[in-house]
């Protein structure tokens, strides 16, 4: 990136890539001794060049072949629809050419501009319709994702809350149990009704 403001910065780049004439080269070398910005720029360019030289060159493939699946076995008893379509298309083109020639001879040519305008308008409408359809589809997908995420999140939260509630209820019950047990132990060991103590 060229960040300095010296007017000879373009010459520095050409110098780095050895694209200067000998006279220009000599002149720039003199300039480099006095301009620190250009000298720094030259160092950066040399570093970049060195890095690029380290990267191995990739051999460009001489030939690329696309291999499709094997065509299905030809069955001769099936009508050749491709050939028939070609024939129909050729007939239609010939007929249209004939009609166009006859129409041209019979009447002056229709203005082209409205047709072109109609075609452009149709193209514009198509683009708008496609853009709108894509936007709608993206919006619907996004809405579906948000809805599914919300539903999943609510399910997880509900399950977690249920677990927490169960733990809290059990903790309260366990606390009550501990109180009762403590009272039981106190009763047994701090009174004359404890086991093993005869009256």
């Amino acid at each position, binding site marked *: 990136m060229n960040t300095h403001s010296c007017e000879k910065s373009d010459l520095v780049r050409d110098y780095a890539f050895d694209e200067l004439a000998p006279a220009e080269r000599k002149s720039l070398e003199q300039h480099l001794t006095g301009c620190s910005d250009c000298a720094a720029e030259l160092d950066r360019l040399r570093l970049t060049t060195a890095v690029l030289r380290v990267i191995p060159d990739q051999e460009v493939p001489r030939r690329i072949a696309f291999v499709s699946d094997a065509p299905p076995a030809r069955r001769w008893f099936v009508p050749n629809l491709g050939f028939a379509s070609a024939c129909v298309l050729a007939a239609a083109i010939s007929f249209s050419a004939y009609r166009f020639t006859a129409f041209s001879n019979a009447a002056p040519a229709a203005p082209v501009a409205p047709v072109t305008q109609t075609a452009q308008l149709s193209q514009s409408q198509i683009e708008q319709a496609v853009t709108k359809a894509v936007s709608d589809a993206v919006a619907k997908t996004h809405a579906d994702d948000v809805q599914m995420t919300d539903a999943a999140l609510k399910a997880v939260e509900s399950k977690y809350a249920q677990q927490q509630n169960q733990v809290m209820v*059990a903790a309260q019950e366990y606390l009550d149990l501990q109180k009762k047990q403590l009272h039981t132990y106190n009763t047994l060991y701090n009174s004359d009704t404890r*086991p093993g*103590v005869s009256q």
Partner: protein
Amino acid sequence: MKPLALITLTAALTTIATAATLGASTEPVVSLSALRTVETFTNEKFATETIGLSRNVSGDPWDLVGTARGTWLPSYGAIFTFELSLVTVTPPSPFHPVISKEEIKSDHDRKVAKLVVFKDTMRDLVVRAATSLTTLPSDESIIFEAYFFSFSFEDRNHLPRRLTMTANRQKLLDAVARKATPAELAALIEEREE
């Protein structure tokens, strides 16, 4: 004058005698000490497993939650009530928040199996109380009532919350005298589960 003095003296003596009669404390037919004896051996029976006093603790001890307390209701009988958990159950905690169905089923199965043992033990206590409460009128009853503790997450199917055993003292004494079998004694004890 003499008759008046005689009447006055008689009234004073009567007042003193009445006061002496009212102030005298009479021992209940079933004394508190007798009730305490039954409470003690009942607690000992269930608390030994809980606290580990007995060396013959089974592998799945019950847990005495509330000690036995007894009372006597004249012309009805002696009633003893206590609370326990048939087995110890581990509740959920932040480190083990969800009790699995397998764990709940395991706890339930352990309690159902322990209930059978508990009933035998409780019948023995009823018979023992009948022989211990010597001052209890023989036509009155011995009642033992157990409340079972359980957590709300447990499966309580086929498990009572309360078990009551009632028996006529005289019938029990007669059965003990003729050395009745445990099955014959059990037939004399009415059980009620709720």
